[in-house]
């Protein structure tokens, strides 16, 4: 059994106090211990972006971060972006623009898109492409994803 450590952090606006093995990833903590399965495993090595979450306002691949490093930090997952069943405008835009097919990569993609727009509300389409480069989608060919983000920043194709 691996050594455990106690954590205190803020998750989607609520305090969390939990004991975790020191070698546990944030992805596994969210999925296995906290039942937040919106954050997806698809590669486990930071290549695909399906597990993207926000930590202290910056997006990270949660498969590459140790849960132990969350102590004192603020985390937002896809479940915390909107409010319950009420979608955040970015989520709504993905739905409205047909950007969701199988949807498996979408939680990570939406978290990353939302982060990009927060960083730069005047994002161009080229900047969107660069900013979403780390998020792989096998269904959509990205065009509708870019349309969805463009609608939020008011940029045209």
């Amino acid at each position, binding site marked *: 059994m691996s050594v455990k450590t106690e954590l205190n952090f803020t998750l989607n606006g609520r305090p969390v106090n939990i004991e975790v093995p020191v070698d546990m990833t944030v992805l596994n903590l969210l999925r296995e211990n906290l039942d937040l399965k*919106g954050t997806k495993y698809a590669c486990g090595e930071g290549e695909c972006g399906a597990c993207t979450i926000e930590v202290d306002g910056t997006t990270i691949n949660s498969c590459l971060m140790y849960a132990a490093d969350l102590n004192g930090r603020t985390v937002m997952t896809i479940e915390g972006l909107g409010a319950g069943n009420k979608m955040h405008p970015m989520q709504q835009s993905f739905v409205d*623009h047909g950007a969701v*097919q199988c949807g*498996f990569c979408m939680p990570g993609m939406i978290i990353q898109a939302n982060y990009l727009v927060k960083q730069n509300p005047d994002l161009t389409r080229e900047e969107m492409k660069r900013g979403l480069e780390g998020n792989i989608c*096998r269904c*959509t060919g990205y065009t509708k994803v870019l349309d969805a983000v463009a609608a939020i920043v008011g940029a045209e194709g």
Partner: protein
Amino acid sequence: MSEQVAFQHIEKTSLIGTRIKKPDAPAKAIGKTRYINDMVLPQMLYGKILHAGRTHAEIVSIDTSEAEKLPGVHLVITAQDTPDLKLGFVKDNAPLKDKVRCERDEVAAVAAESEAIAAEALKLIKVTYKDLPPVYTIEDGLKDGAPVIQDRFPDNKSLSFKFTHGDMAAAEQKSDIILDDVFNVHYVTHCCMGTSCAIADFDHNGKLTIYSQTQYPYNYKMDLAPALGIDPGDIRVIQPPTGGSFGAKLDVYPFEPVAAILAQKTGRPVKILFDREEEFINSPTRQPARMHLRTGCTSDGILTFRAADVMMDNGAYTSWGPTVPVIMMRTVSGHYRVPVVDFKGQAVYTNNAYAGSFRGYGNVQMTYATAQHMDMLAEKLAKDHNLDPIEFRLKNAQKSGEVTPQKSFLRECALAECLTTAAEASDYVNKLNKYTAERAQEGRYKRGIGLASSIHNAGGAKIHKSDGCGTILKMDDYARVTVITGASEIGQGIDAVIAQIVAEELGVPTEHVNLVNNDSDLGPWDVGVHASRTTFIAGNGARRAAIKAKKQILAAASKQANVSADELDLRGGFVVQDKDGAVVTKLDKMLRQMHFQPEPDVVMVSDYYEPNSEPEGRDHISDHSAAYSHAVHIAEVLVDTYTGEVKVEKVTMAQDVGRVINRMGLEAQMEGGLAFGLGFALSEEMIFEEGRLKNPSFRDYKLPTAPDMPDLDIHFIESDCAEGPYGAKGIAELPTIVVAPAIANAVYNATGIRFFNPPMTPEKVARAIWEKKQV
């Protein structure tokens, strides 16, 4: 309220061609959807499989005793626990192996209380192997005295295919130009974002419930049962949301029966979920192929013949991969008007990975060859005979009503319109000539434009005796509709299309149509989501069921209102007069009145739609699809001649879609399909050394990402297919099929170099440019 509606008039409107949002998208966007990967059942155990990691060996002994002793391990099984259980297209595969034939071979499996314990237990299994001489190439497999991979096939020859039509000698005689080239199409894989997963659970009666990502739940039972030694009737297939499929789940693969056997023996639910590396090594690939293609043509630009000799590396087992010649030969005989045809296909067993079905199914491979030959002919005819490259293609393009040598009946054919539309929209001929002229000039960056087209089945593909789909439709007392369809949803969007079609017929909002299609105990038969068939087949079925329901309602309304039923219609939640839309009554009220009368009448209808097509026979002469479709892509590329990087800047797509149903879903399929072809053309490649995969990760296997996507100019050609729902044809594979040869033709236009062996990676392109300079 009822007083007011009496004066209302509701105009006839149509949902067909509009943009319908995918009903399951909101739950996916907020992270609420539970995919199969996310599921946990009470008392569930975690299964893991020990893979051989070597390619050809006898298994001398397996010692599982240490693994069994590990706390938390419930069961360890080997081939000895699963005798004579077979799976695969020719039943040459088994859940667990008694001999190793390829890297992925499943040697033993563990069920434990956590994934970590299961993984630990695998390390404790001691296997002694005796390596055998391996076979890694088709040539080695065919040599006299070659090691035998499968005892039932002592010459290592797996499936073979043959189709000939017309007098080849005479056709060659008539030909002024004969092209003769070999194209080698590489290994790629599906890379579904959700890795492979199955959860198996037996009940006290011996009935198996399997939670599966399968694309073909009904035949799946038939294929899974012999691998378990149970009756197919004792299998219930539940299809939770899945992270993509693209053909990968059109067969039973060993991990599924292994999960079931573990569940059967432990009495507990067992889940097997691959990590990404397991996914790369243990999933099917696209069928690689060496295609020797010869094409003949007159100096007037009339095609005289096509001859294709296709050799396929079967790998160690036979899934759907080596059956792709069934579609390849339709392309050889039907991609433009080809009077004389000779097709041969042969698959050869080796100790390599094995292929399954994959979006585009043989046509991605064959069109890569045929569309480049068309481009080579076009160039030659333009140069030597002053024939316009579009005119050349138009001369050979079939028209509506033509029949191919394999008896594909092109009832509605819009190839010519696809050609002219795409060529005009992209200014193809002018750019082609301009870039050809610029090729000889100095400069690091070269532009190129390339055109490719193809044909594909667009009304199902009758590879089984029936290609049908069942639909059950009921309406409740509140005018909510439930549709139970055999058609599976794997992300492609049949949920939106069926809601749209049923709403169109019954005059209800799409949000009032609920779809049930994830449980084989509920759903009626369907062949599966494949072959671009679902909108066509399941869409027709849903429409026919809705029309039956509508007739029943209007008949009841007709009695009540004392008007003939054909003078009534359903619109906006009301029964109305067809001619002026005057409201007769509310639909929900009508349904309640039907229900609560002395002889109750409840709307519950069913339909089994069988497309108007003929089964694919052994002679391959049959009209095997109820519709065929064409697409033309024109790719514009920028080639960095220093680095070899090919940037696809724009693709103009024109596709005969029959009729647009859900415009948004259709666009999404075009864009996503194109991305598949883009990766295949430029970056994706499974690299094998001595049968072992060297790049099983997204770091080393390069999928297209957002910056790789070109600008798209999409044109839908509506040929109005008489058999399709509202005129629609199936659409989802052509975008993947056509784009790679369009890019190859564009790279040729830019560099003067033909790439017969994709992918056109920077290394390969730079090397070819360098080599050309040395000459």
